[in-house]
């Protein structure tokens, strides 16, 4: 199922349903209206997309193998930590994911994700966000932008796509245009960029300013382009007002809840949950707290030494989010994705850390009403190649789309040019079946 990366976009238009059905009979059944429920589109409404920039080592997290030794000479490949049982019999994870292990019945670690782009973080980050290689003739949209474009916000009063992290082109809307872009905040203390009033502008001063602006706006007739802009100004004003901004106020949560989510990354996840409740469709949450261990998830050399702190942060936040969403009865309609640009090899580098590996690595799905099984796909003893059920990046994207009720064979339009929503991806049937 490893996708041949190519640019067959226009072709996909020509192929139509018939051609795809030859390749993917199951899905064709699933999407044609009255077919048996072999596979059907999911009903999830929201997606919280964790981004573990740097490349999470699957062998030290969701796909543990025998213990290795980074310090012996020569070093012995294998996991850096011991593994533990989870709520799903037979599925083990690292000991630093102890809290997540308990809710593993709501989780599927997809262990056989693979691609061939490992030299450069930016390149792989772009691939995992857009599901495609760069082409030079099209700028592809990120998965967040596609979801925002396809489904809009759940509540019309909030943005469809929010990012808690640093803007970059890989997270951007590509050819879908600015309207499908994200609104971002870099951390939980700063409000959303552009919508957070300056500290010295309270709502009274804001009203004063608008009163001054009004005669300047009135110069243009109501049926004009500048009047359309004025309408956008009204919308912007509403978003910078308390109705929207209150969602960012974590003080409104109880101390118990806040503590349960843990540090800054956990607080970002809590904020993401609040945004889900407010009606945001897609929230990307970056775990870019690189300096807990020096390197973030890019655990070359010494970065390995404190990697367990990163893992524990994710463990706390992920398990808290799952429990909290469950408590609020919105876990089934909220898909959680843990994504990263690539994995890392079982062998250690000369500094006791790990290099990059794309041939097999883990990304994680949780909630979203999926038929979870703890883990999907099997890798070899070195975590290097998939042995069963390989999952390409387009397949992984297709699974996310299908979970969110978006037909993974749908076509987007780049101008007049049709671009399939994934590059030939097929959803993981087992997770969607019977969901």
């Amino acid at each position: 199922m490893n996708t041949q990366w190519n640019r067959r976009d226009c072709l996909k238009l020509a192929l139509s349903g018939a051609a795809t059905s030859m390749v993917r009979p199951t899905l064709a059944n699933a999407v044609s209206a009255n077919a048996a429920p072999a596979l059907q589109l999911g009903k999830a409404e929201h997606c919280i997309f964790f981004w573990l920039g740097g490349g999470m080592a699957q062998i030290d997290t969701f796909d543990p193998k025998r213990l290795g030794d980074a310090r012996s000479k020569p070093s012995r490949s294998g996991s850096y930590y011991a593994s533990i049982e989870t709520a799903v019999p037979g599925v083990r994870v690292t000991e630093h994911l102890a809290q997540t292990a308990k809710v593993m019945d709501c989780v599927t670690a997809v262990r056989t994700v693979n691609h061939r782009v490992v030299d450069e973080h930016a390149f792989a980050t772009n691939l995992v966000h857009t599901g495609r290689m760069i082409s030079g003739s099209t700028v592809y949209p990120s998965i967040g932008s596609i979801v925002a474009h396809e489904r809009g916000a759940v509540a019309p009063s909030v943005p469809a796509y929010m990012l808690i992290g640093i803007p970059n082109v890989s997270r951007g809307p590509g050819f879908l245009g600015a309207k499908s872009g994200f609104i971002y905040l870099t951390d939980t203390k700063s409000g959303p960029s552009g919508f957070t009033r300056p500290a010295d502008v309270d709502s009274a001063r804001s009203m004063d300013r608008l009163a001054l602006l009004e005669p300047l706006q009135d110069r243009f007739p109501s049926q004009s382009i500048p009047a359309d802009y004025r309408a956008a100004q009204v919308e912007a004003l509403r978003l910078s007002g308390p109705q929207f901004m209150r969602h960012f106020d974590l003080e409104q949560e109880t101390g118990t809840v806040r503590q349960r989510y843990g540090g800054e990354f956990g607080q970002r996840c809590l904020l993401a949950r609040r945004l889900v409740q407010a009606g945001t469709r897609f929230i990307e949450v970056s775990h870019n707290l690189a300096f807990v261990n020096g390197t973030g998830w890019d655990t070359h050399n010494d970065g390995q030494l404190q990697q367990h702190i990163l893992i524990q942060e994710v463990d706390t936040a992920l398990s808290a989010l799952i429990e909290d969403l469950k408590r609020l009865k919105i876990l089934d309609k909220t898909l959680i994705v843990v994504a990263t640009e690539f994995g890392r090899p079982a062998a250690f580098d000369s500094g006791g850390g790990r290099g990059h590996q794309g041939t097999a690595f883990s990304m994680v799905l949780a909630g979203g009403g999926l038929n979870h099984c703890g883990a999907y796909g099997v890798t070899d003893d070195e975590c290097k190649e998939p042995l069963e059920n390989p999952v390409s990046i387009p397949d992984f994207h297709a699974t996310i789309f299908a979970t969110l009720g978006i037909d993974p064979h749908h076509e987007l339009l780049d101008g007049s040019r049709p671009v399939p929503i994934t590059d030939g991806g097929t959803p993981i049937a087992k997770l969607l079946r019977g969901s």
Partner: protein
Amino acid sequence: MNSASKDDCTVIQTSTLLLLLILFANMFGAIAVSQEPRDAAGETVKRSQAVRVEICEQGLNDKDAWPDPLPIATESFEVHAFGLDQIPPKYVDDGIRGKRPSPSMVRFSAVVELPAGKHRFLIRARSASRLSLNGVLIGATPFPPKNGGDGSQADTERLVAIDLGPGYRFAPRGEYEKIAEFESDGGLCEVKFDVFAGGREGKNPRRVEVGETVVAIAKSGTEKWELLTPLPESIPYTDASWEGYRARAAKIVFDHSAAQRSALRDQGSAYWASRRQAANAWLASTPEVSVPPLPEGLLAENPIDHFIAAKFATVKSQNRHKATENVDFFRDVKPLLESRCGDCHRGMKAKGGLRLDSEEFARKGGDSGPAYEAGNAVESELLRRVRSTDSDEVMPPKGNRLTESEVSLLTRWIQEGASWPELPLVRDSFIGTIDDAGFIRRAMLDTVGVPPTEQELRNFMSDSASNKRATLIDRLLEDPRWADHWVPFWQDLLAENPNILNPTLNNTGPFRWWLYESLLDDLPMDRMVTQLVLQRGGEREGGPAGFSIASQNDVPFAAKGAIVSSAFLGVEMKCARCHDSPTGAFKQEQLFQLGAMLAVRPLNVPKTSSVDPEKLNAGGRTPLIEVTLLPGSTVEPKWPFPAFADSGLADALVLNTEDQREHLAALLTAPQNERFAQVIANRVWQRFMGRGIVEPLDDWEKGEPTHPELLQWLGRDLVRNGYQVKSLVRTIMNSAAYQRAVDPSLKLPDPLYSACEPRRLSAEQIVDSLFAVTGKPFVTEPMCLDLNGRRETDNAVDLGIPRRAWMLASLSNERDRPSLTLPRLQAVSDVMSALGWRGSRQDPSSSRDIAPNALQPAILASGVMSQWVTRLSEDHGLTEVALREQPVETLVEELFLRLLSRRPAEREKASFVSWLEVDYATRRVANPVLEYRPHVVPKLITWTNHLQPESDPAAQERIVAAQKGDPPTPRLEPKWRARCEDVVWALLNSPEMIYRP
């Protein structure tokens, strides 16, 4: 071989000797020298009038050793003191930026006068340097390590900056530093300061840059640091004084660079003169376009107006039959036909032989007969097909069916006579001329990208000369800011896409510098395009060679071919990248032929740039696309557009008949290729007039010219004027059509140009204007993540410190690391991105996404950059205006003039005056206390240390500081100042700030 090893040996000895000398100097702290400086002939020398800067490129290696003997200088110029933070780019070929050998060496020398006493000298340099006084080495800095590392390297040596005392400058980019003492008896002293630039990172060259290279002196008994200079002036080495000095030096480097370019271009002048002669001969041998007579009652400034008035009169006469009340062809029917049918039923390759892009073809119909008969909806084939439930027949074949209301619309249109006028008549007559204030604002935004200053505005308004608009246009066309305004156009068109870190996202080199200098030097269009196609110079140094790169692209030159064909021929070949276009006439093979010419070698077609034939032929319906070029094929270079120009023309025009790039350049730019001049003219026309005579600009197969004769006339006019775009612009701007007032009700540009529409300014125009009108300095970080130049050039370019919006690029933090953030640039980038700018230009673009969305007004109202330009800080241009002794009415008037280029209307004036007059008399603070700026060592965050534990918190502090912005001035009472800021805010958020008058 032998001689090489001998040289190496000498080098080692020399460097050992130097090392000893340095040790010696350090051990004793100072060296006393008393001898008078003499030149080579033994003559006593005189105090210099300047510091000579010599660049040496030859005879250097990367062995971390000083060359012996010293290499000969290849280039030199003079500055005022021992201080420079840039060396000029190297120019090669036809005056384009080239690549200097890395490492190169720079020698500063001068004879200075020193008072008697023991002085301290500070050396700052990015790499190895050595300072000698009267021939004796007194201080040096080392060669940097060869390994720039992965970002986690501790680099303590360079990160502990020397503190020269309050007010004095810290090394801004982690330069090496050294303080040495020297005792002088007084009198003249010959100073030589050698520095290395560039070097190697592993095997790869580093950027050939110098960083902030300085020799400063604290004279005996003082703590005052000043730049060492032979001149009598004192240049304190403080931040403020350095800024002034740096600007002076930058001007010298700028002028030196311009002279270098000019000298190189002179070598090509004979060739280009012959090209002009050939063009004139062609013009003489081909018929002129006749300019139509002016219809009665209409006015004209030049031939453009004749064409436009004639067309207006024609369409007006056609439009006597008004469209029915229910259906308007242009409003309702045409958009529907274009969006739902146009992809297939348009142009020469229309499906089923049916074209729905003109009335003539639509009535004639295709293989299934006429699409419709006017007045007879019942028997219309078009309606039958859109209503059909047979999946083999229904139209459109893909995507959603037409809605019921769309079908009903088409039915009514056909039933009511299928009216199809040539062009919509938006207005019955031409609107009047724009007023002077609006004209100067429009003209400046269109040429230099920013509105007039208050003084420019007042001068223009009070000028009573009848030709003052023409005079203004002439002046603006000479303004160097023209280049700033036009770079973005070319960046979009040619997909200039540099990346400041590890370029992998279809990145190019930073050929923005070539674009800028070509525009600055008024390079004729044929010469500029020739330089582009030849792709010479430095790839990462800003030469047109940067265009040739497409990182991680499977067939870079196919991508480049598509850019060239759309930019210069209006032929869109994106589809041909992988298959023949479903609608266009051009095949994949033609794109690859073009690509092969650009590559100067045959191109292979990889599987990744094709479509699997099995999949292509699968399925029921006939595929919309064809693949006639199989993967694995090899395509030879060949001019693929004989219809535009006969390939035989090239031989007479090229210097080297073997060079495929020369061939391509000649065939593109030969006057016989009328398409080229017309495409350029059409693009320039669109920039000023709001729409092209042909739309879309980059795909002429899809559109017919609205004014074909005018287009032809403009193309010939461009050739006649030596391919000078400015000549074309002068004609356009002087036309009555350009100078018409705005009809605010127009939502789109009128294709008959009866009035101007309100036109959204570009992201660059808006950002530059906000800084320009408020006088707030545009201050950001350098566009660079490798401040100390340790990385290899290919993975870390330095795009400089932006002074205009176009200088930004993608901030490239895919790593998502706080320590790699550039928060001030981010604040500007956020505004620009919301307004339709793309930091990452992976593909070319002829039009931007400027549809209004909530983020645009939000970021302009509350964004970080917006706070900078609104807050009356000490360095804000309006702070002095607010403090000035004048009636509040005058202040309001001045704010309107500065920010909106007009006087306030009565209602506006009343509102603003009543707001500002509160506490106006007491707005000034009697004894303001300026905020103390603590003198702390700034933390250097750069690639080499960005993963160190201190870098993240330091970056966070920087983010907070950027978001907070500069403190407000203490000279205005806070409450009144806030009121004044509210007024500034309102003016800056007025639609007039983002729409062109």
